[in-house]
């Protein structure tokens, strides 16, 4: 005789193996891809922007380090509140929307002169952020290359090198967490998009259509002192916001620096997905069983 608990266990653990017919599978998938194609408007707000390759100059060793800072700085350069617009975007609403977003996923593409990690145009970084979680995935083509993850509540940091099948998983110290909250959380937290760099001077760029979406932009040329770790000759950061939704659509940053102006760097943030509920359970990287821990 089986007990109720036994029945529960039995049904739960049943190995109900099945397979699918490869030919039908292929036909169904073809139909799905066709339906997807037809349903996507050509002028989708989230289609990839068509931006040409930035012309690079001489190799500079500092750029790799500079890139980190620029990535961290790409968001939050603008004083939204109080930026008037008579044409469409109410910037206070943008600020409110971004602050209210529980989490965000977006893409960063960048290039720099001499950056050994230059991946343009096929490489990109996908960032997932909320107030306490930060995950960054580096892609080359469609292959994931590296992953870095911080969980400030679970006090965990994970680094995965997919190309070498190694990883490191460590506990974060309270000091580290504090430092991240103080220094980095501004960038990992959607609220930080607004609160950092509030005092930059900026001007409006008017409206333009970006991949079919009517956007309104603002620009700052005020690099402040935290944009890069090299002398900046010229700096330009532009934020484009959808007039219809009042959410950011595109961020562009260009930096020219170095004593002779030979360092050039360009970063773009796009494909924003706002209002995403991110949980540690979902965001924490899965480490394949064959990956080795880094000693």
């Amino acid at each position, binding site marked *: 005789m089986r007990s109720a608990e036994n029945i529960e266990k039995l049904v739960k653990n049943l190995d109900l193996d099945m397979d699918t017919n490869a030919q039908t599978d292929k036909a169904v998938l073809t139909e799905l*891809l066709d339906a997807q194609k037809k349903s996507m408007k050509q002028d989708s707000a989230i289609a990839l922007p068509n931006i040409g390759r930035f012309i690079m100059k001489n190799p500079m060793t500092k750029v790799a380090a500079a890139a980190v800072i620029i990535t961290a700085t790409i968001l939050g350069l603008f004083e939204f509140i109080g930026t008037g617009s008579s044409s469409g975007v109410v910037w206070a609403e943008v600020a409110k929307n971004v602050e209210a977003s529980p989490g965000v996923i977006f893409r960063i593409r960048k290039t720099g002169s001499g950056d050994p990690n230059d991946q343009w145009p096929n490489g990109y970084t996908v960032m997932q952020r909320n107030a306490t979680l930060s995950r960054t995935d580096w892609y080359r083509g469609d292959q994931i290359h590296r992953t870095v993850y911080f969980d400030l509540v679970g006090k965990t940091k994970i680094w995965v090198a997919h190309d070498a099948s190694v990883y490191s998983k460590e506990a974060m110290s309270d000091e580290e967490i504090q430092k991240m909250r103080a220094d980095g959380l501004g960038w990992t937290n959607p609220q930080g998009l607004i609160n950092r760099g509030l005092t930059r001077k900026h001007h409006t760029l008017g409206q333009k259509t970006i991949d079919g979406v009517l956007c309104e932009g603002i620009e700052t040329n005020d690099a402040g002192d935290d944009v890069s770790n090299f002398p900046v000759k010229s700096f330009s950061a532009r934020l484009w916001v959808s007039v219809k939704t009042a959410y950011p659509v595109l961020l562009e940053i260009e930096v020219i620096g170095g004593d002779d102006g030979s360092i050039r760097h360009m970063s773009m943030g796009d494909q924003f997905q706002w209002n995403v509920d991110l949980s540690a359970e979902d965001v924490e990287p899965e480490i394949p069983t064959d990956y080795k821990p880094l000693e």
Partner: protein
Amino acid sequence: MLEDHVLIWKFKGGSREALCRIYQKYKKDLLRLATILLNDTGDAEDIVHDVFLSFAQSAEKLKLHGNLKSYLLTCVANRARNVNRMHQHRRTVGLDDAEQVVSDAKRPDEWIVCSEELKRWSDILARLPFEQREVVILHLRAGMKFRQIAKLQDISVNTVKGRYRYGLVKLRSILNGEVEK
């Protein structure tokens, strides 16, 4: 390796690769659930096909805040319930007296290739009333909480728990009967 949030993010950006990956990742879970809910591979294939099709068309309007797998399984469960209602109605009006079964007969365009175990359990579970079967399967096989099932079916949690309890009792009696045979 690609987590679901990123897959959704890419899918919403129009990525074909993301749709392929989602399809490959979840098709079996969906087909399996549909099969044991309906005990009819033809109907199961139809609803999973429809779920994927409407998902593929939803990229621009999809607002998914939870778990992708749960979302897709919920879509399958909803459609399975509708199919079941339709069958009940047809039977009531005498249009369809045939038993639903996971057939051994092969169709030329079949999608699902069932294991013997899946066939056997589909038959066993089909002996439970649909309402009980659905709760038992969604809780034990799809990992849904009673609260989630209650929301899905728009009934109280207590009703869900009651159906679950009755379902287990009936299942136990079916299985014990099998053993005694």
